[in-house]
């Protein structure tokens, strides 16, 4: 059996307010194979976003071992972690988090600035990514000129433009109407089915979770 893409062994995460420890995740162990489409569900404060952040390498566990795409994240320095993220992770935020001063094409091109690609190649890659999400005719539009669904599709294009190993989405449909939410989930489903992208989403929306192949419930920092 192939190594799992994501492996967590007794991972715990606590936040501290002064000397008071606030546990968020407790002794989480799980594996996610490559090509999986996994939905993490749970009530607010259950620790699902924290778990997503740990897997994305934008936060560090208090205890335990976290291995993603063959790399043990606890051993990486901040700068090594940043480089690792740029190569391995595509992150989709609930509120899109596009830079308002950049066009759709420029937003998608942004992660490619960290690669050795030429300007021409970067533009081509970004255009292909936008075409893939159905926004080939919106390349020169600024975020404020796009609908919420279109903005999220630009954010997805930005997440996939570097061809990352793992796509992580935090409430990707949380700020969208039902139609737009369905379009986004269709798109993620297509990325998983056609392009074999491993996808992990955090969601409150049962309809969005239905599109995943597997659903895990978290409650009070542990699997329910």
């Amino acid at each position, binding site marked *: 059996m192939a190594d799992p893409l994501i492996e967590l062994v007794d991972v715990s995460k606590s*936040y501290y307010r002064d000397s008071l420890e606030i546990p*968020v995740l407790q002794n989480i162990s799980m594996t996610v194979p490559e090509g999986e489409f996994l939905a993490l569900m749970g009530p*607010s*404060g*259950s*620790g*699902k*976003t*924290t*778990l*997503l*952040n740990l897997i*994305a390498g*934008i*936060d560090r566990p208090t205890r335990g071992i976290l291995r993603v795409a063959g790399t043990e994240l606890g051993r990486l320095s*901040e*700068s090594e972690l*940043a*480089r*690792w*993220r*740029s*190569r391995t*992770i595509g*992150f989709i*935020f*609930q509120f899109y*988090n596009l*830079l*308002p*001063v*950049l066009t759709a*094409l*420029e937003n998608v*091109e*942004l*992660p490619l*600035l*960290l690669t050795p690609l030429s*300007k021409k190649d*970067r533009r081509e890659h970004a255009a292909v990514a936008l075409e893939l999400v159905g926004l080939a005719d919106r390349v020169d539009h600024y975020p404020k000129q796009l609908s919420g669904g279109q903005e999220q599709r630009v954010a997805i294009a*930005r997440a996939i433009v570097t061809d990352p190993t793992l796509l992580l989405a*935090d409430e990707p449909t949380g700020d969208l109407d039902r139609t737009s939410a369905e379009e986004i989930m269709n798109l993620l489903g297509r990325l998983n089915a056609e392009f074999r992208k491993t996808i992990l989403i*955090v969601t409150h929306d049962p309809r969005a979770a239905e599109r995943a192949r597997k659903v895990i419930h978290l409650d009070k920092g542990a699997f329910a």
Partner: protein
Amino acid sequence: MELFRLIFKNALRHPLRSVLTVLGIAIAISAFGLIRTVIGAWYSGVEASAPNRLITRNAVSLGFPLPISYREAIRGIPGVADVSYANWFGGIYIDEKHSQFPQFAVDPATWFELYPEFHLPPEQETAFKQQRNAAVVGRKLAERFNWKVGDTIQMRGMIFPGNWEFVIRGIYTGAQKSTDETQFHFHYQYLDEKLRQTEPWRAGNVGWYVVKVQDPKQAAEVADEIDRRFKNSLAETLTETEKAFILGFISMSETILVALRIISMVIIGVILLVLSNTMAMTARERLSEYAVLKTLGFGARHLVFLIVGESLLIALAGGVLGILITYPAAHGFERAMGDAMGAIFPAFDVAPVTQLICGLMAVGVGLAASLFPTWRAVQVRIVDGLRRVG
């Protein structure tokens, strides 16, 4: 799209805020440049001083004269190449308001040899030497009163009473920008001869000697020797380099100069506050964007580049605009000062070094203003920047 482009786009994200910040910096840099120019003009005489010239005056004060007989004694001191002399005239041309320019009774035979920075056409120098009541004036002074060679002018003596008539026989130009082109020179003999008739007890004296030394390295020794020679005489001397002599005058205005320097530093502090405020607001507003950039894999150096670049861009835009404004501001200052300008500041120009200092100040302010926002953006944890804890 390069990060440079993102810097430009970020700088223009709030156009009104950026424009007001740039204008604030520009006005402050311009005020700083103008004050620097005023201070520089104050010291222009020091810049124009020659290392091989000494000034010998009465040890009591410049108000007391020295006998003309000292000239030959000074000339005989080893290391002295040449000696000239002058007297402050203090005449009134038209009225007191129009008389604020330096007037010297000088030795026509030697004066322009000791001051080679006064460029006088040879035929005009010859004409000056040949006529007892001839005068040579600086270019700026001639322009101020619209004097031409051959014009006759009248002055009323205040230190040396009577009406004095002069014929302009030459107009000199300065070798450098810092050379004083506002001086009025006429024959010492013209003054002395009239004194012998009207106030004979005041004749035969000069205000000071100008001593040219053979080797500037020997200036201190020659000065000591001159003063030693006249020790215990009726008129003891004080000899110093021309630079020290001029600095002695400037020291009388030291309080004003210190105040101006303090004001110029306060101005820089104000710019720093203005830009720091803008950059602090910028960083606070964009913390979530910096967190997104970090999530995408951008490191601390990229954030430093973006924030410092934006701060420098705004500061430099203000700096360049400020330097450009300094020229019309200096011109306006000159116009506002009117006739008094030439008397107070013989040379008043925005010097290249002032532009350089203004530019460096803008860069320094740009860097300093970006320090805290950069530190904050680099330090903030991604999860805190995104303000989302599930």
